[in-house]
């Protein structure tokens, strides 16, 4: 059960937002102390620079920042860790020889034999006509 910082009736508007941010972070898996510290840090940052949230409500702006920071690992949450090491891309080199599949050659032979047959048939038909 998460606990809020203060009972809602005594909270000002900003305190209410701080409390909701705190509860969000606790639900993410942060400890209560960590949630309080991180929530306050982000809200203070937003308060000092109103351009960061002039088009969205303060709470949404704060959560948006926190979501990104958790996803990038800047805020550490148990069980939310880097899911892959950094990539060092090196392509697989195509296995060349099996691409020259014998069946391709068989297909080629089949094609060639069809042409020979067609030629022979034409010649035979021409001979018959004569």
């Amino acid at each position: 059960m998460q606990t809020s910082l203060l009972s809602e009736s005594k909270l000002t508007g900003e305190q209410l937002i701080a409390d909701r941010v705190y509860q969000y972070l606790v639900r993410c898996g942060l400890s209560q102390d960590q949630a309080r510290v991180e929530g306050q840090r982000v809200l203070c940052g937003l308060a000092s620079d109103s351009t960061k949230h002039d088009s969205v409500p303060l709470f949404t702006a704060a959560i948006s920042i926190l979501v990104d920071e958790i996803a990038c690992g800047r805020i550490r949450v148990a069980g939310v860790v880097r899911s892959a090491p950094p990539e060092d891309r090196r392509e697989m080199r195509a296995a060349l020889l099996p691409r020259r599949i014998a069946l391709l050659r068989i297909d080629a032979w089949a094609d060639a034999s069809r042409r020979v047959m067609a030629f022979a048939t034409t010649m035979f038909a021409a001979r018959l006509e004569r």
Partner: protein
Amino acid sequence: MTSQALLASSTSRIRSLVALMTLMLVTIATASFATVANNLGGVNYFELAGIPLFAILFAWIAFSFCLATLGFVALWRERIETVRRVDDAAPVEPLSIGLEGESRERTAVLMPIYNESPDRVMAGVKAMLLDLREHSLQDKFDFYILSDTTNHGTWIREEVAWSELTRSLDLTDGVFYRHRPHNTCRKAGNIADFVERWGSRHEFMIVLDADSLISGATLGEMVRRMRQDDRLGILQVPPVPIGRSSLFARLQQFAASVYGPIFVKGFSLWAGGEGNYWGHNAILRVEAFRMHCDLPVLPGKPPLGGEILSHDFIEAALLVQAGYKVEIATDLGDSYEECPTTLADYAQRDQRWCQGNLQHSKLLASENLRPLSRLHLSCGIMAYLASPIWVLFTGLCMAGMIVDTQDFSGTSRIDSYSGALAIFSVSMVMLLLPKLWSVLLVCQSQREMKLRGGLLMLVMSSLLETVFSVLLSPIMAIYHTRFVVAALRGKSIRWSAQQRDEHGVTWSDALSQFVVITLAGMLVTFLLAQFAPALLPWFSPLLVGVVFSIPLAVAMGSRKIGLALRSIGALLIPSEIDPPSVCQHLQRALEDAKTTARYSDQVDWFEDLIHNPRTFAIHAAIQKSTVEGAAMPIHQFKALEAAFATGGADNIPLESRSALLHDIDTLKRLHLQTQQ
């Protein structure tokens, strides 16, 4: 002579011996078959057509028999040598598992998964990690769970289960998870994706299946052996099936545990450094794999063309062709897998393998493959082609013998029937003798015998397994024939996830699956009884299994029967009597998962992801670290947002959910909406 040259010369001698023995047995048996057919009223057309089929089928069993014999002799001698060394108090070389000071590089352990149970997958990884910890080897390995899962609910559950695993073991590194948006080229593509993205970080990779389990000591030893030999491309550790309770599964587990070793040993000695790879429970040299194993797409359409399904044989052949060795470590244990629990599940898996192996016919004549690799591919094809040949041969024999019994007026009937009986007996001996040898080999050690319930239960279990294998073989032959015919007619299979849990078989399921086979068996029995009653005893071992396939299928899938047999000590395997620590860890992890599984089955994971901050955070963190942004088109996003606004997560169409899960920015917008 160097040890390498000695080994090569000994392998060459073994191959010549096996080839000679097989050829000799086939020649004698085929000549006898033709003589017997001729004595029974002359060779009719059916018998004439049957002679080459007999030769092919006999060659197949004679070859297996020779390999089993070879394996038996080798293992028998090895065990006597071991006993003598212990008696002489000579130091026995311990299994070296310490990797300290050899290299700081970590070995990748890959677990490719596709719509599997996340609880089982993570329990397996956890068991191996705990076992590695016990051997102080955890920091020598990185685990990669490589998901190709297409079911979005299972995908989210995988992420949550992975997160729980890292949290429960207090890990910040060393167990990774990534999900591939498109499962191009299936498992081969999944592995290739790993090699391209993270392969350069690792010298070796150990490839597992979703149900694989290998002890920490064996993992360590696999790496040590790869480091010792620069030319070793793949080291395959034969997996043993464990952990299932249905009668069918227990029969397979027992057979693999008792009979498996002599076949694997024989195969390993025969193949030498040109062995085979079975797709999992093996360690591979990453750079060699990257340079030589990007598989081609076969010309033509599926089922025989297109993406290569059974990639493992081809990868082994390519590495051998490139000058690397592919070996089988018959002396390494503690390598496990799980097997299908019902006949239908087994057949479903076999259909995939059948299609994959038949595809290899297109690669048989590829240039520059080593002759032994071609032989491995041929054996893979023959494993399935043998069934239609057998069914055809049986039909021809029946027809030929009916014709003979109608026309026959010769004087050598008794001689010829005794000749036929002799051929039948020799064939049976070749099939059954390896089982007897395997039992003898187990009896060589008191401990091995105890681990299978003692001498009496070992013998009883072997007899039981033999009876059931005789009953099941015609059913499997009919299944294989259907698969081969379907593949040749161009019918491709749907690649669904393997059924791994124990769900049993209901009578209605068995009826629908086996009614045609049963009726066909009854018809053949009736025809034989009507026109050639003397032949019925000859064919009864085949017909009984087919006619009773419905109750047999129900019994095979029964966990109750399997457990009852276990309670009286039948069909026991060593891991049931004295489970190694990695199996104990798995058991505990599965029991832990049972409590959460009940909860997780009731959760709508897609809705949970959008509403629950923790599930969303886990998903977002995974996406940020493994996937490049896959933003969906603006009109699609608008449509999804409108659907979400009117009816919540339920209103988002199923077909759009996977795309949405990959578009983390859109998902974040929806998530933020739910938090207002």
